[in-house]
């Protein structure tokens, strides 16, 4: 296991960031208490969103890097962390599903698989490279003060609105007739679990081979068997949690998986983001004279009722809380600053990338957080196809990036 060097600090000046962190935390606690009387689901998702934001900021867990760095710098470290994350979460979801009497087919993220998944994946992959983040990463970086990601967020809202409306083209042609494949319903649970373990291990080893060109010196069991490694691992976890060092991607994956599994237990559904954001964009659109309740997404897919209006969607609170969780984490560790992009090009690429991410996540019916991570962990086949085409999209995005954005 790689031990990251401890961050040494050269700052002598006193700072107020830690005080602000306490204020942010108090505000979030007050919001949760206020929401608990008003919209109980939203208070639960706010808590979990805050935790997600904190973990993402501390572990620097960047889903975009997992798809992009394989091609751009031939480094698959984060890709392997994502595979590990999916494996842990799917096992957790399976356990919750079994204990609670079969939640997954009804409440898991299991979506139709068709051409829309393919096109959505390609656009999403391209978008995340030029935006410098995926949807989740965008929220996390907004909390850290990156101005570029605020532009990406604007693009996300525009793209989601367009996607929610434009689904009227995709829906009748592809989505309505597309098969919904819940893998255990086809091959049974034992084979599904075995298939997951084998596939993820194979992809894991393939990524190592792709990076190093050989598997000769690689021993997948080395980590577990070496006792001194476990001790140094525990010591570095102590450093990561209590001393302000960066969390390793592995710790990030474990913490994210646990949080999503617990959300599934307490809320009854896995985490997602973009449907919440689309409801927000639906609210904005309704305020400026559009009629989003006639858009395909709201009319045909969500069946928007007056009882659940746009601003009550629990995932909107999860998404907002991610920004605050990351804001809190960066203040607490004195890392917050307003960050300006180096070049005006990044503003445009951020905005365009955001539009692509927003649109494609509507077309594919979810982003990499809900659609891919929670989807794959709900044993839905669409998530794997989506992931494969995100990878392909990121390949083309990387080519574009190297040519025009560097």
């Amino acid at each position, binding site marked *: 296991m*790689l031990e*990251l*060097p*401890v*961050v*040494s*600090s*050269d*700052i002598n000046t006193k*700072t107020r*960031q830690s005080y602000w962190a306490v204020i942010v935390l108090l505000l979030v606690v007050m919001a949760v208490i206020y929401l608990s009387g008003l919209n109980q689901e939203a208070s639960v998702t706010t808590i979990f969103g805050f935790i997600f934001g904190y973990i993402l*900021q501390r*572990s*620097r867990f*960047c889903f*975009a*890097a997992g798809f*992009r*760095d394989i091609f*751009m*710098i031939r*480094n698959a*470290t*984060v890709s392997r962390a994502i595979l590990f994350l999916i494996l842990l979460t799917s096992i957790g979801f399976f356990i919750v599903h079994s204990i609670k009497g079969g939640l997954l087919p009804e409440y898991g993220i299991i979506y139709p698989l068709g051409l829309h998944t393919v096109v959505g994946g390609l656009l999403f992959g391209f978008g995340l490279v030029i935006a*410098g983040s995926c949807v989740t990463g965008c929220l996390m970086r907004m909390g*850290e*003060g990156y101005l*570029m990601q605020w532009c990406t967020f604007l693009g996300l809202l525009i793209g989601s609105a367009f996607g929610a409306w434009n689904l009227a083209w995709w829906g009748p042609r592809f989505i309505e007739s597309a098969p919904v494949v819940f893998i255990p319903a086809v091959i049974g649970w034992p084979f599904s679990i075995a298939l997951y373990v084998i596939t993820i291990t194979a992809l894991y080893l393939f990524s190592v081979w792709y*990076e190093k060109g050989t598997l000769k010196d690689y021993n997948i069991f080395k980590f577990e068997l070496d006792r001194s490694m476990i001790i140094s691992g525990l010591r570095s976890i102590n450093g990561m949690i209590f001393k302000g060092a*960066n969390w390793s*991607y592995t710790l990030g994956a474990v913490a994210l998986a646990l949080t999503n599994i617990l959300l599934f237990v307490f809320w009854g559904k896995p985490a997602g983001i973009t449907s919440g954001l689309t409801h927000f964009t639906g609210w904005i659109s309704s305020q400026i004279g559009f009629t989003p309740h006639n858009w395909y997404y709201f009319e045909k897919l969500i069946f928007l009722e007056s009882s659940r209006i746009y601003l009550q969607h629990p995932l909107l609170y999860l998404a907002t809380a991610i920004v605050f969780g990351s804001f809190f984490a*960066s203040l607490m560790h*004195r*890392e*917050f*600053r307003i*960050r*300006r*992009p*180096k*070049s005006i090009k*990044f503003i445009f690429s951020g905005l365009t990338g955001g539009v692509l991410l927003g649109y494609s996540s509507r077309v594919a019916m979810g982003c990499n957080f809900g659609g891919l991570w929670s989807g794959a962990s709900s044993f839905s086949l669409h998530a794997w196809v989506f992931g494969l085409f995100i990878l392909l999209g990121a390949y083309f995005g990387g080519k574009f990036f190297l040519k025009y954005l*560097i």
Partner: protein
Amino acid sequence: MDHHIDSLGDICPIPIIKIEQKLKVANRSDRIILESDHSCSTSSVVNHFITKYGYPAEIIKVAEGIWHIVITKTS
């Protein structure tokens, strides 16, 4: 010799690409010092050069949200 790289406001993976370019012209035992305000870079850059190149790396926080990442070219 120290090579300084200004990477403030760059998005990933530009910091890594800039260091790789500089390493090509650097001599043995030269240090590359990259200034970055990208929080993810503190993990991703260090991880890349330690695991892939085996070069020692160090992170120094020089201001709130700004880090110097020091990579030493050992071979």
